[in-house]
Structures are given as structure tokens and as C-alpha cells.
């Protein structure tokens, strides 16, 4: 099957998303991957990286990367800027009691580069 030319350099299953220094500390940025939007968070206080879908399932707003991150009983979470629904960064589960969840993606940082694994997202 023919795929569009990649905008990222391909390395096995991991794609290079951005430079670590481009990601805001203790917050998120949004990465474009073809038609997809992926939110990347650098939880600097915990030295942890997370990647999730950028769309908030509540009202389908492309906004999670602009949300505030934090913890609930030590579980890392992000709060959507629109109505403050919160989602676990680790599992994608909604923590504010709603029946919705977000996709999370594997992410790693190596030598100042941030890679995400987007095997589950076909490029169309």
C-alpha cells in the first residue's frame, strides 16, 4: 500500500516528533503527524514524558496540549482547558467521572530528541 511521504524521519516504529528543548516544561505542545494531532507533555517535575491524542473527547476540541498537567493521588493527569475534565496521562482514562477516555502513545526521549510510537495511527 502506498503511503504519503513522511514528514518525520522514520526509525523503525518510532518517529521523531520534535526536539526536547522545544517542549515547554511541565506542560504540553501539539505535534502534527499527517492528519493527526498528538499532544506531548513533559512532566519536568517527575522527569516523565507522555503522548496522547490532542482532541478532548468531551466536545471534540483540539486542546489537550494546552491543558494544565498535574497529579491526582500520584496519577499524572491533564485537565482540558475548556471544561476542566481530567484524563490520566498514563492510561487515558477520564478521571472526572465521565464515560470517555483518550488514546495514549508510547514516547521516549533520547539525546535531546523526542520520539513517539504511532503504529496505531495509519497515515492516510
Amino acid at each position, binding site marked *: 500500500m502506498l503511503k504519503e511521504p513522511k514528514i518525520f524521519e522514520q526509525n523503525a516504529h518510532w518517529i521523531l516528533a*520534535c526536539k526536547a528543548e522545544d517542549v515547554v516544561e511541565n506542560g504540553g505542545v501539539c505535534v*502534527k503527524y499527517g492528519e493527526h494531532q498528538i499532544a506531548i507533555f513533559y512532566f519536568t517535575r517527575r522527569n516523565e514524558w507522555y503522548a496522547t491524542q490532542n482532541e478532548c473527547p468531551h466536545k471534540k476540541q*483540539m486542546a489537550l496540549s494546552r491543558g*494544565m498537567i498535574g497529579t*491526582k493521588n500520584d496519577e499524572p493527569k491533564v485537565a482540558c482547558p475548556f471544561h476542566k475534565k481530567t484524563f490520566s496521562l498514563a492510561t487515558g482514562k477520564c478521571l472526572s*467521572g465521565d464515560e470517555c477516555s483518550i488514546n495514549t502513545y508510547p514516547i521516549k526521549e533520547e539525546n535531546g530528541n523526542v520520539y513517539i510510537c504511532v503504529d496505531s495511527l495509519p497515515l492516510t
Partner: protein
Amino acid sequence: MKVVVIGNGMVGYKFCEKLIAKKLPDLELIVFGEEQYPAYDRVHLSDFFNGKGVDDLTLAPASWYAENNIKLHLCDPVLYIRNSIKLLQTYKGYVMHYDILVMATGSAAFVPNIDGIDKRGVFLYRTIEDLHLIQSYAKKVKRGAVIGGGLLGLEAAKALLDLGIKNPDVIEFAPRLMPRQLDESGSKILSNTLTNIGLNIHTNKNTAKISGKENVTGMQFTDGTSLSTDMIVISAGIKPRGELAVECGLETGINGGIVVNNFMQTSDENIYAIGECALYNEMTYGLIAPGYEMADVTVNEICRIHAKSNIRTKEFTGFDMSTKLKLVGTDVASFGDPFAQGDTVRNIVLKDTSKGIYKRINVTADGKHLLGGVLIGDTTQYNILLQTCKNKLILPPHPEDLILPARDVKKEEGAGIVALPDDALICSCESVDKAAICSAVINQGCETIDDIKKCTKAGTGCGGCLPMVKDLMVYTMKQQGKYVRNVLCEHFNYSRQELFDLVKLHDLRTYNQVLDNLGKGDGCEICKPAISSILASLWNEMVLVKGNDTSQDSNDRFLANIQKGGTYSVVPRIPGGEITPEKLIVIGQVAQKYGLYTKITGGQRIDLFGAHVSDLPSIWSELIAAGFESGHAYGKALRTVKSCVGSTWCRFGLQDSVSFAIQIEERYRGLRAPHKFKSAVSGCIRECAEAQSKDFGIIATEKGWNLYVCGNGGSKPQHAHLLATDIDSDTCIKYIDRFLMFYIRTADTLTRTATWLNKMEGGINYLRNVVVNDSLGMAEQWEQEMQALVNAYQCEWKVAIETPEIRKRFNHFINAPEEKDPTVKFDALREQKKAANWK
């Protein structure tokens, strides 16, 4: 075991939810629904006209059914039941066997047999589809009428008002409104209130004919009168949908309701009927709470049958029909026996025609027990009265106290909770009793309303019981020796005021420092903005520096309010509402260039909506070059100081209110506080600037200014209190300095000045003592601190556009900074644009 449900309405859904919670092995659950949407919240149907969409009303999305292994067939009504061989057939042609059949077919609107009822422009009010039809028809017409002055009819009339129909007519057959719930005096008061807000109420009217060719043009009544109208909504009652039952020979009542026993079994023991289609004891229950109770009884039956047992644990024994509802512009409640009277009954009535308040309670002659009552205009005591009535509690010696205005019975209310028996039903939608709520606090450690909702489901239906749930929770926590401490969140064991003093004492400058020194864990969306606001109030440093950017509320982080669709609004400061033609032109040009929607705000300035995040820096560069600065519309900070034109032009003006408003706005611009705050200056007591509705407001007098504080618009409007009279400009500013510093230091997060004062012991007199008489000895320090903040002011947007590290944060894609978010969509509206609706 194969259970088939006919009808995917509110009760059918609740039945599924309760049944799958039992996790019965080998259960096959199939649902046939006639409507195109999965079950939605019919009770809040009218919210559809207040901007709620189908999604908001949906009880659970189709995916929920799939996840729980429920086969949901929508748009597929069941056509026949062959109960002798346990088969049914649907519209789309399924022929299906069942072990147990549950009929939850609800009811249909009752349509009276009136000549002309089939004309175009006649509507029902029951389903989302009805509303779609009403909405599109209402756009084309001017006049509307509702047949039926009961609960639903009045709701439909309100919907017509919301749709822009002026003075809709309400036609009631009975001599009064809501004849089933209200007595005559109550109906009269209600009629008055409704007339005042624009409804035309006609009682004692029987419609004889609907006139018009194809489309409705009017109606004629049996008394010879007539009325012209373009559309008619019928809300004259309900008719249970028992047609399937009739067809297959189940026993039904005259109204078509399916006859059931105490276990919701119909005359065929394998078929159950629940919700509005059921007829129990010759009674149809048109409310949601009894429907849910029926669902619960049936689920118990199915578990029993599944376990092949004969022991029944739950039965339906009828249900209280007490209701509380928010009607157009007023609250109405009726409970117990609202009409009780006679020798053995004492009626106590409180009536205030000018306020539209009517309360009646019916008490036994010996004054010991409450039998029922009616509340109109003020229903704050409903919950406790209902409980007192249902649980046959002994009344206090002066039962009339029960309906006196709320503040006088505060103590009684607390006592009321304590006196309630454990099985007092607190949330009737989800049938949660007092014991369950107390136990959620004691045994499951619930300490917030959200916890309680999750644990018990209380308050997740109509929400009417929430105040009582909260009182019970707080009461139980106190009983448990849990000090109900006003702490910020799980990361900080301090109140805002304590944190404010500690941050200052330790000279902390960033969110991370505060968290490391005073908190634990990694923060959250509650403490981050609260601490950021404290830091800003204390030091007034640009909010996006020192790594504080990601601890700001999202709006502060982008120095703009995020709006539907993910674009932002731009609000330049226009002090006092005064603006030159040149600046107006610049605003117009900027809006044109970036394609922004422009609107004059309620705060005397101009809002530009629809800016892409990546356009914000360029937009602001252009505005700043023309002499504008940030308006802080995004911050918990000073908003606007409104002004009236004052003595420079106005023939009544006593002082130059515009100049003073500008001076005040420029003094406090950018100042951050626990919540936003607003001000206004009027040139005389005619008060054209509405200063008495502001956090602080100033009105000119012959001799100087009167200063008012702690007013509020918003959802609970409150007039400001007079703090000082006939003071000169300098004194006025001095008092405002002190007032604001006192507020900033001591108020809880997100508390406006009005609420802050409401909670202050000693009220306005205490506040006046602190501000005017300096009773705390803080005046000088506060004035100095305020001056330091004023001196430290910088326009945040100016700093932002001039600092490359900050500026580069304003893009949507980190790896494609020049691209805008392609999902942002606009629709055209009156030569401008608007955000596309939520998806």
C-alpha cells in the same frame, strides 16, 4: 437467559444500567428502540433550546451499549408480540424469541380530538424530533400558542419564548393552571408571575376548532371567542403506549396503560412493564423517579428468575408524586397532599403577591404532622418539608416557622437533617437514602460532592437534592470528627489566606518553589492557578516568566480567552470606555485583516473573537503600535471601570466621571486578585454607569464622591453597600487601595467581593471599620503595597511580543509553527462569522 427490552427511553435505559450491574452470567440483553437516538434525558428536553445538543442530553452513547454487550437496535419499533410462543417481530423484520420481555414503551402526548388538529403548524412536545420541528417552524412565524396549562405545557410555553415567539398564549381547559398540583390561590400567584414575564394565560377555555387553510392561522373556543396564532404546541397530557399490549391481549386500562402487579408483571408472567406505559393500581406515573423504582423492582425479578428462586425481595408499592420544578421565571413545588383541608386539618398560608410568593402547608389539627403543601416563588424549604412529611416527623411547636423566609429557619434546617430517619429518601431519582449518603462518608471516605455522586449516584438525576446532600455530607464529616478544613486541594494543606501569608513570608517567586516549600506531590489544575494568582497579587511580575507559564490557568497562559473551537478572543483595554476615532479605525482594520468577529461588550469596550493562537502576537503587535494595551479580559484581574459621560457633557452631571474612571482604571489595571473585579463611576445619582452593581463603584455627589463596595452582577446579583460618603478623589483612591488589598489577602480562591463580604463576620460595618477607621492598623502598609504593585505594572502583551522565548509559545503545532489548526471551523452570521457548533 434472553431478556428483550422494548423501548429505549429513560426507564428502559435505567433498566439496562441496573441489570448489567448485576453481572449475571449467560445473560443476553437486546433492546429495540423506535427513536433514532439512544436514550436521552427527556426531563431536560427543554435545555435543547438553551444550546444543549443531542450529545449533552444522551444518557449513554451507543458505544456504552456495545461495551456492555447490549444489542441496541434503534429506529426499529416492535410491531407484534406473540406471547403464547414468546416471539416478537420488528419493523425491520427481526423475528426474535425471548425468555423475559420488558416493555418500557413510555407514553405519547395525548392529542385531543379537535377539528383541524392535523393542520400544518401543530406540534407535540415529547421527543428530540418534535423539538427539531418546532425549532425550524418557529423561525418562520411570529405568534404561538400552547394547549395545556399543566407542567409540560408551561415548559413548552417557555420554550416558545426562548425561540423568540413574543407573548405565547397558554390555553388551559380547567379554571386554573397546574390543576393537579396547585390550589386556587397558588395558581393565581403563578399566573401573575407568568403574565409578568410575557405569557398570555387563558383558563376555562375549551378549543373547538383550529382554523386555517393548510397552515394554522388561529383557534376558536367553545365560548365563542377566538385567537390568531401561527403555531400550536399540544401538551394536554400523556397517553401510555399500550398498543402492543392491547394487540396481544394483555390486560390494559382505559387509558391504554399496561396493567401490572407489585412486581411489575403484566397479565403474562413473562412480560413486565415499567415506566410511563405501566398502570399500577389504576395509576400512571408520569415522573422519572417512580419509573426508576419500577426498573429496580424488575431487575430484582430477573435476578430471582435467573437464580430459579421463589423469594422476592423487592416490590413496588406506589410512589409519592411530590414535585419541584423550575418553571419559567419561578420555582414551584407541591408535595404530599397539597389540597388537604377540612375540620381535621390546619392550613397555614404565607402569601406575598408583589414578590410572587405563595406557600401553603397542611398540618394535622393537633399541629403534630405535616400532610402536604404547595410552594411557589421560593422552594428553598422543599427538601426538608418533603422529608418531614414523608417520614411523619413531629413538627416544631410553631409549624409556621417552616415556611418563613429561609434565613430565619437556618437552625431548624440543620436540626432537620439530624432528625431524619436513616431511610429518608434524599435523592428520589436514584433512590438514595440518608443512610447511604452517611455511609459513603463514613465507610468509603467520600469528602466531596463528586465522590458522593460517584459512590452513590445521588444527585446525578435532576440534581435538585444536591444542597441537601452537601449539608448531610458536611454534617456527617463533622460528626466523624473530621475538621472540615478549607484547604486548597490534595497538594496543599492550607487555605488561600494561609498560603498568601506564607508565600509572602518566605519570599517565594515561582509555583515550583511554593510547591516544594509548602506543598506535596506535583500539583493540579486547582492549586496551580490559585498559587499563580497569589504570586501575581504579591509581586506583580509578568505571569509567563520564570517557568510560571504552565502553572497559569489556560487563559492566562495564552493571555486570551479560549473560545468554542479553540480560537481566542482579543480585548484591548479602553479605559472608562473612552476611545478616539483613530483607535476605533485601527480596531476595525485589525479585525478585517485577521478575520475577527467584533462586538461591543457589556463592559464598554470591544471584543474581537475568532483569533488563531498563532495570530495573537501579530494582532497584539499592531494594536500595541497604535497605543492599545492588554485589557486583561482573560485574568482574574481588574476588568473595566465603566463610566457615564458625566459633567463634561451631561446636563445633570456633578463631577467629571469619565476622567475619574480613566484614572481608576489606569491605577488598578493588571492587578490580579482571587477573582476578577469590576468598577464604574457615575456622574450623578441617576447612575447610568451602574456603579452599585460593581465590586467597587463610585457615584458623584455635590461635594465629591460616594464609594460603594461589594456589588455583583452574575448569577446572584447583589447591590453594593455604601462605604463612605462625600469624599474627595484622593481619599476615595486611598480607601479603594485598602479595600482591594484586604480583599486580595483574605478572600478564598475564586470568590468575588460580594461573596467575600457575605461570609465576613460583622459584614459591612466591620469592613468599614477596617478600611475607613483602620481598625487593624494595616492601612499604611496596604497603601504602600498597592503603590508598589501600581509601579510594577507592565503591559503583559507588550512583554510577550518583545520576548522571543515567550512569543514562540504561540503556535498550534510545535513541528509546523506556520500552520494553523485545520479543525477550526467557522459559520457565517450576519455579515460576520461565528464559531461552528460543538461537534
